[in-house]
């Protein structure tokens, strides 16, 4: 049955048009939807938006930043948890919000707030909590590995973190779009769980690009999000995320990735990483996996 393409408003609950009855048509509709400017993509929480705005201001100080975070108890609690996590290991426990802000630094606070926001707002599709939790942990581990690779190759460390963190940001967007389509369609859409996750896997770079545009992320970051599954890319930023992605899978116990496959990874080769350098990255696996799990 031929259906009209999904309309952008559907993501936030607008009425659904013609029914869709197959995986094929749903896929086509999603592609059409994600290829257009999306008017109703998930927004960042208010606290996160304020943190982003404040940290972009040259005159921002730790006190005013901690004041904003304090108004969101959930955000404040998570930030303290992260400041005490193994990846930011400090000689003494971090007990105050201002201490956490000072210890992590403005930029890292910005990154952590983005991370938490993504988790609370985006990564919450009923019925897929476990999968999205894994996606979030994987994104965090990828971000931390990307930083390590950036240091080794003298690439921008801050950008590496964000690129790793956001590379799979399209996954919850696709999932939510599918759920919206299924729940609001006049007729049942027969797409099982496996097929749903396959669609998420296939379409998430496209959805990520759409979200990056809606959030006004940098063009280079948007490019990494869109291209991180492209094996032909030669851009260092994309290569870095591709290899960090593999390292994160390894660190999180994905059985498809072993040390031998990391040593032979094409992105690592393109980044000119020798086996001893890859070995050093692999040796960070336990610490990074623990940090990602703790967030």
């Amino acid at each position, binding site marked *: 049955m031929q259906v009209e393409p999904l309309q952008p408003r559907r993501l936030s609950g607008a009425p659904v048009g013609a029914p869709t009855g197959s995986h094929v048509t749903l896929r086509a509709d999603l592609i059409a939807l994600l290829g257009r400017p999306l008017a109703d993509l998930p927004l960042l929480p208010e606290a996160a938006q304020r943190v982003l705005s404040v940290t972009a201001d040259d005159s921002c100080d730790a006190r005013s930043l901690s004041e904003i975070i304090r108004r969101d108890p959930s955000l404040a609690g998570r930030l303290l948890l992260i400041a005490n996590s193994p990846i930011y290991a400090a000689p003494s426990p971090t007990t105050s919000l201002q201490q956490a802000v000072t*210890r992590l*630094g*403005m930029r*890292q606070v910005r990154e952590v707030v983005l991370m938490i926001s993504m988790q609370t707002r985006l990564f919450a599709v009923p019925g897929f909590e476990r999968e999205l939790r894994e996606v979030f942990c994987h994104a965090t581990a990828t971000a931390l590995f990307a930083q390590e690779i950036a240091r080794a190759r*003298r690439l*921008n*460390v801050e950008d590496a973190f964000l690129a790793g963190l956001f590379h799979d940001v399209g996954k919850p967007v696709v999932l939510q779009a599918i759920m919206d389509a299924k729940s609001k369609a006049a007729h049942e859409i027969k797409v099982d769980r496996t097929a749903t996750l396959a669609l998420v896997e296939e379409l998430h770079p496209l959805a990520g690009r759409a979200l990056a545009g809606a959030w006004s992320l940098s063009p280079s970051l948007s490019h990494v999000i869109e291209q991180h599954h492209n094996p032909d890319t030669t851009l260092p930023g994309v290569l870095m995320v591709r290899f960090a992605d593999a390292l994160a899978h390894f660190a999180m116990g994905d059985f498809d990735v072993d040390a031998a496959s990391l*040593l*032979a990874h094409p992105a690592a080769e393109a980044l000119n990483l020798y086996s001893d350098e890859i070995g050093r990255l692999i040796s960070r696996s336990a610490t990074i996996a623990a940090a990602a799990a703790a967030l």
Partner: protein
Amino acid sequence: MSSPEVFDIAVVGSGPAGQKAAICGAKAGKRVVLIEQEREIGGACVRRGTIPSKTLRETALAYSTFQRKTGGMFPLAAPQHLLVEGMMSRLGEVISAHEKFMAEQLGRNGILVWHGRASFSSPHELSVTPLRGERRALSAGTIVLAPGSRPRMPDDVPVDHEHILDSDSILSMHYLPRSLAVLGAGVIACEYASIFAALGVKVTLIDKAARPLAFLEPELTDHFVGALERQDGKFLGGRTTREVAFDGAAVQIELDDGTHVEAEKVLCALGRVANVEGLELENAGVKLNSRGLIIVDEHCRTASPGIYAVGDVIGPPSLAASAMEQGRRAVSHALDIPAGQAAELIPTGVYCIPEMASVGLTEIRARELHGSVTMGRASFAEIARGQIAAVDGLLKLVTDTSDGRILGVHIVGEGASELVAVGQVAIQSNWRVEQLIETIFNFPTLAEAYRVAALDVVKRRTT
């Protein structure tokens, strides 16, 4: 590992020194292999050193001089957040053109390039570990080591390549910081300090030496410090750092005299170390000095027969021009080809804003060697071209009072590194100062400064 492939000459490192060594060998009809651990040829010079920093410098120079040179006719307002990569947008083209030229040159001369890390298995055998796959072995009667150097990372400066950067990672910054502290006052430190100051960054240059670039004429470095101060920067000389730490918001620097400096970013430019790890020099009998540099004689021969070392790995002057000459001379010596008289006269160019260049003897050294010396100076403000182009600068001649021979030329100001070539030829040709006076230079050019400075010498000699 397979049996060794046999070459006449093996060169480790494809920077300026290695390239010239390889080409010299190939032009003599020898079978040459060049081993490079990075994917691209050219060494640090191309991707992390000379070429990227000079590309950024050109933008900074154009930006900082635009208003002055155009008399303020065209208002120029910099955006709030200037992208560093945007200011090096031409870099890709520059590097591509450079790499294409180098690759064609190597190919034209039949030089093989092996991608991997080299280590000695015996004095004339190298094992090359590629990124992936089996090691390869080679043997060569002559081995030239040109592995270059990397930034030194002092134990007490926690370089994280994010807040505290080194000269390899400084250009990975996306946005210009509001403030930058530079540790060190050598060539790299001063070049970056002046580039970022010209772009509006508040720069603090910190070093244990009393003045920056101590090997240059004080008059030149005074000029440099003055220019830095006019751009709201400062030089804190004669001080050492007690502690450098990122506190979450900025980098805090405590100096031994109690001075406190806070900066958004820090560039640690406290020297470089030779890339000798992994070469397994002990298997070849190559010796290092106490600073970790390979010990060589005047022909760049190491302690092991048939093994030469050139470029940064043997220490100062660590300039691309001298490294290339070392590469050529080393292979010429190995092949018993006359290399000509060793070039004692190597010009120094420091690409700060303002640019500085020097050739021959400084005033102090000339006094030590020649006794009585006479100096002559020409300010660019006295030269028509200097007035037209609104460039500030100084040319200083050092001459032997007894016979008027030109012993040294020292220049600060735009175009100094080009302008110094006239002085270099004059010194090499044993010119006397009168010959500069008799020379007709184009008008208006900054080269006229030579004539003005020469007249100043004559005037001082006769008064």
